[in-house]
C-alpha cells in the first residue's frame, strides 16, 4: 500500500485549503457559478439530480482498513450512511452539502486520499486489475506503475486542459480484468523474449456513444520507457485531438480519424523528443514506490478447516465456488465480497458494511482491500483456514451473496436516480433483474454471465462489453431500453451487437429473462457459457426469443 510522503501530504492539504477558500468565495458571492464550476469539478464535486455528489478516487482500487473506515465515517458524518462504488474504482457520495465538502476532503487527506482529477478533462483515476498483487496468473503487480502514473499525472501542467477526459487502465495478467481494451490507454504487462517485464500499449479504446476497442500502438514498451511513452501519447493527443466538438474529442476519435499508423508516427516523433528528458528520476521514484507494494509475509498453515467446512456446509461451498479466486500463495484465496445482494443497489455499501469489511481485512487479510470495476469489494489475501469464519461474519452483515460472475452480479451506473446526464433509470432495472433471477433460482445453472446496464449513451455501466448489455434511453418522453448481446470486456474485447427495437421499462426484465431461458435451451452442454453459445449460434435464436413473430410486422416499434 502506497503511503503519502511529505510532498503528497502537503500537496493534498494545500488543495483542500484552496478549495475551502473557493467554496467560501462562492458562498459570499465573489465567485459566480460559471467561475466556481470548473474549480469544484477539479475536486470531484458534481451537482447531480437531487444533490451534490462527491467522487473520491480510490487509486487502482487499493485500500487498507484505515481508509475504508474513513470512507464509512465520511458516509455517516456528512452523507446518508452509505457510499456507492463505481466502475472506475471510485466511491461516490450522493448527498453531501456544499458547506461540508472541504471538511470531507480534509477527512480524506487524513488517510491519504483525495478527490483530485476525478472529473474534468484530465487524466482520471488510473484503474487496475482488482486482483493485483494476489492473482495466481499475474506476471507482475501493476499497482506500482499505476501509482507512478498517478503521481506523474496529478496536476501535470501540460495535461490539465486536455480536449476531453482521459482514462488509463493497467493489468498485470494475460487475463484482463481491468477492461484495458476499453480505455484511452490500456497497459498490459507482458514479458518479452528476453524475459524482461514491459507493457503492450493499447490506445483509443472507449465506450460511450462511439464504442471502440483499443488498438495496439506498441507491442512492447520497456519499464524505463513507460512514462515518456505514455506522455508522448498524451502529448500527441493534446496537440492533434479535436476540440471543435465534444463528442469527437476523445483520443479514440483522434486515432480513428488520423489512422493508427499516422497517430503512431506522431507519438514516436514526440517520444524521440522527450525520452532524453527522462534521465532516471522516474525510475528512482518507481523503485521507491515498489517498496510500498512488497508482498505480505504469507502464513504457512494447514487448510483443514476450509476443507471440512467446504465438505459439510452447502452454503459455504456455494459461496466458495463463486466468490473465491486462485491466489498465488499456497493456502491463500482471493475473496470477492459481492455488493450485489439480490434486489440491492449494485455497488452500494453501508457505513456498517464498510467497517465490517475493514475489520475483516485487518484481522484476516493483511490489511488490504480492493474495489473492482465490477462494483464489488475484494479481500485479496485471505488464508483458507480463515474462510469459514470470514464467511460467517460476511453472512451476518448481508455481504455473503454467492453470485460473483453470475447473472445477478450486475454492473449498473447510477442512472436517472442520481445522474444529471442520464436518460433513463438503471438501478431499479438491475434490482428487478436480480430479484427475478433469485426467484427463478437459475443463476447457478446459467453460470458465467455478465449483465451491464447504462442509463445513458455515455456507458458508465459498460453495457457495450456486457454479455447482455442494456442501454436506457429517453424515447419520446418514455424510458426505453436497448439490448446488446455478445459484448466482452476481457482480453478478447468485443462490442456487443444490438438485438433490435428497445423495450419499455416494464418489458425489460421479462426480455432479459427470455434471453437467459433461450440460452439454457440452446447451449450444447452445461459447460458452454452464454458468451460461447452466443458466438456459436449468433443473434438469430435470441432475437426470436425476444421478439418472436412480432418482429416481422412491427418495424414501426424500432427505436
Amino acid at each position, binding site marked *: 500500500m502506497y503511503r503519502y510522503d511529505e510532498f503528497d501530504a502537503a500537496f493534498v492539504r494545500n488543495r483542500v485549503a484552496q478549495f475551502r477558500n473557493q467554496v467560501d468565495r*462562492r*458562498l459570499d*458571492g465573489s465567485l*459566480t*457559478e460559471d467561475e466556481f464550476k470548473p474549480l469544484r469539478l477539479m475536486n470531484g464535486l458534481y*451537482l*447531480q*439530480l*437531487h*444533490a*451534490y455528489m462527491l467522487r473520491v478516487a480510490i487509486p487502482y482500487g487499493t485500500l487498507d482498513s484505515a481508509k475504508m473506515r474513513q470512507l464509512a465515517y465520511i458516509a455517516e458524518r456528512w452523507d*446518508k450512511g452509505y457510499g456507492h462504488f463505481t466502475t472506475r474504482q471510485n466511491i461516490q457520495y*450522493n*448527498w*453531501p*452539502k*456544499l*458547506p461540508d465538502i472541504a471538511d470531507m476532503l480534509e477527512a480524506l487527506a487524513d488517510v491519504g486520499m483525495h478527490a483530485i482529477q476525478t472529473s474534468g478533462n484530465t487524466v482520471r483515476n488510473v484503474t487496475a486489475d482488482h486482483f493485483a498483487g494476489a492473482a495466481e496468473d499475474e506476471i507482475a503487480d501493476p499497482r506500482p506503475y499505476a501509482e507512478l502514473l498517478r503521481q506523474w499525472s496529478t496536476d501535470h501542467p501540460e495535461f490539465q486542459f486536455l480536449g476531453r477526459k482521459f482514462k488509463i487502465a493497467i493489468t498485470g495478467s494475460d487475463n484482463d480484468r481491468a477492461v484495458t481494451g476499453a480505455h484511452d490507454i490500456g497497459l498490459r504487462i507482458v514479458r518479452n523474449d528476453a524475459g524482461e517485464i514491459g507493457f503492450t500499449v493499447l490506445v483509443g479504446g472507449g465506450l460511450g456513444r462511439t464504442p471502440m476497442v483499443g488498438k495496439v500502438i506498441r507491442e512492447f514498451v520497456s519499464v524505463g520507457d513507460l512514462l515518456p511513452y505514455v506522455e508522448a501519447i498524451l502529448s500527441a493527443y493534446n496537440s492533434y485531438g479535436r476540440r471543435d466538438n465534444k463528442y469527437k474529442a476523445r483520443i479514440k476519435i483522434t486515432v480513428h480519424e488520423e489512422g493508427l499508423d499516422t497517430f503512431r508516427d506522431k507519438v514516436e516523433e514526440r517520444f524521440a523528443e522527450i525520452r532524453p528528458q527522462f534521465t532516471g528520476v522516474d525510475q528512482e521514484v518507481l523503485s521507491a514506490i515498489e517498496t510500498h507494494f512488497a508482498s505480505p509475509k504469507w502464513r504457512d498453515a494447514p487448510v483443514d478447516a476450509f476443507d471440512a467446512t467446504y465438505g459439510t456446509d452447502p452454503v459455504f461451498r456455494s459461496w466458495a465456488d463463486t466468490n473465491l479466486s486462485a491466489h498465488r500463495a499456497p493456502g491463500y484465496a482471493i475473496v470477492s465480497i459481492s455488493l450485489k445482494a439480490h434486489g440491492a*443497489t449494485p455497488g452500494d455499501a453501508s457505513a456498517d458494511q464498510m467497517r465490517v469489511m475493514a475489520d475483516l481485512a485487518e484481522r484476516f487479510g493483511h490489511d488490504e482491500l480492493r474495489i473492482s470495476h465490477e462494483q464489488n469489494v475484494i479481500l485479496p489475501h485471505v488464508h483458507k483456514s480463515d474462510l469459514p469464519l470470514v464467511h460467517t461474519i460476511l453472512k451476518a452483515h448481508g455481504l455473503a451473496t454467492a453470485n460473483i460472475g453470475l447473472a445477478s452480479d450486475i454492473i449498473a451506473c447510477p442512472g*436517472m*436516480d*442520481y445522474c444529471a446526464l442520464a436518460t433513463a*433509470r438503471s*438501478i*431499479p432495472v438491475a*434490482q428487478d433483474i436480480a430479484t427475478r433471477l433469485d426467484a427463478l433460482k437459475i443463476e447457478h445453472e446459467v453460470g458465467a454471465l455478465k449483465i451491464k446496464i447504462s442509463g445513458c449513451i455515455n456507458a458508465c455501466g459498460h453495457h457495450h462489453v456486457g454479455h447482455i448489455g442494456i442501454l436506457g434511453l*429517453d424515447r419520446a*418522453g*418514455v*424510458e426505453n431500453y436497448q439490448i446488446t448481446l455478445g459484448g466482452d470486456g476481457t482480453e478478447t474485447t468485443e462490442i456487443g451487437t444490438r438485438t433490435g427495437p428497445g423495450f419499455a421499462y416494464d418489458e425489460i426484465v421479462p426480455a432479459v429473462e427470455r434471453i437467459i431461458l433461450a440460452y439454457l435451451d440452446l447451449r450444447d452442454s452445461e459447460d458452454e457459457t452464454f458468451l460461447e453459445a452466443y458466438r456459436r449460434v449468433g443473434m438469430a435464436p435470441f432475437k426470436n426469443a425476444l421478439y418472436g413473430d412480432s418482429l416481422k410486422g412491427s418495424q414501426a416499434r424500432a427505436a
Partner: protein
Amino acid sequence: MSRRFTPKVVTANDLLLGDVIYLTEQDTWTRDHSKAELIEDEAHADIRLLFASQQAGAVVGAYLADAKPGPKGPEPVHFREAFRARGPSNYAHGKQVDARA
C-alpha cells in the same frame, strides 16, 4: 411557424444543499413542485427565468421545465422532472422523505 408555448415552471438546484427547488409566484423558492408558479405565457416565462438566474447566491442552474396543471398544483410532464420532484427510486431519500415529514 414557431412551436406553441407549453406551460412551464422555473426550477433549479439550491446552492447550499444542491436539492431541487421551484420558483413560486411570491418570488420565493419551494421544494414542492405543486407549489411552483405555473407559467403559461412565454414572455412571462423569460422574465421569470431571468429573475431566477439573477439569484446566483441562492440557486444553481435555473431552467424552464414543462409542467401541467393538476388538482394540487403544477405537475411534471417529463419523467426526468417527475424523478427530480420525487427523489431516487432505490431509497426513500431526498424529497420523498421531506414529503412525508
